[in-house]
């Protein structure tokens, strides 16, 4: 079994990588849609930008929790 051969730190690093997949896709989609919205309606760019940062903050939290767990498990 591959996982059994990895050290504790290896598993932690691997888990952080897994935790980053979802938020990576999420932020990409979110910013892409926001850019599209801003390109279509430049006058609403300010509102879209604020909402975009809010959305990024919520999505990013998942990856950051993964990052913290990486240190808790790997240290």
């Amino acid at each position, binding site marked *: 079994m591959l996982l059994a051969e990895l050290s504790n730190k290896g598993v932690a690093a691997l888990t952080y990588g897994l935790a980053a997949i979802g938020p990576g896709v999420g932020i990409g989609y979110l910013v892409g849609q926001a850019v599209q919205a801003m390109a279509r309606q430049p006058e609403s760019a300010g509102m879209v930008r*604020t909402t975009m940062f*809010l959305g990024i*903050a919520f999505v990013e*939290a998942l990856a*950051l929790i993964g*990052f913290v767990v990486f*240190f808790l498990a790997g240290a």
Partner: protein
Amino acid sequence: MLLAAEFPPLSHITNWSAFAGDGQWWEINKVVIVYGFAVLFTVLLFTLGNKKKLVPTGAQNLAEMAVEFVEDGIAVETMGKEGKKYVPFLMSLFFFIFFTNIFEVIPVIQMPAAARIAMPMTLALIAYVVYHGAGFKSHGIGYFKHALVPPGVPIALLPLVMLIEFVSKFLVQPFSHTVRLFANLLAGHILLVTFAVLTTALVTPKWYAVFSPLPFAGVVFFTAFEVFVSFLQAYVFTLLTGVYINAAQSHEH
């Protein structure tokens, strides 16, 4: 021995030995000095903005721009007109976080205070008290109903929804609020340390020293990036505080 480059353990890059009062409650170390400077700059900004000249000049101009940014960009954006009374609170929050963060890239200190969880946790707890306080002030004891029962939920699902809302609003929300600031700044700090360690490891008489400009360029690039992150995280933290206050006190739903 390229791969053997000594990476300092995490405690070495976030723990600082005390300059005075080791182990006492008033212990003075690098992080405390960063707090001191951040408070000083924030108070300075408030003092500068407090002069009431009709045509602002110099420093007053800067301070007024800062106030305008927080007022229009954060308070009114998230809470509408009634957000104006929270401008002083959000303003001190934003600039305290921004000034502690920016010390990440200022030579000699180069330590974001938010990379120690104490500071983000304290700020998140202050914000927690403020937004739930605003909720109780606005709804009285009915705030629990406002917070826990979303409109239009079938009665059969109510216990489950209330449990989920309780966990998310009262437990997870302050936690993610803390971790967002803490982990972003800690990650940035580690990133800079990594590139700096790599650069010094490549300064050797061996042939692969020719690669040393690459991690150095990384240090330069990520230093610029961290300036942006310092600003963005202060903005996001304050923006979320505004959103939480608005969610707690709003009457629409």
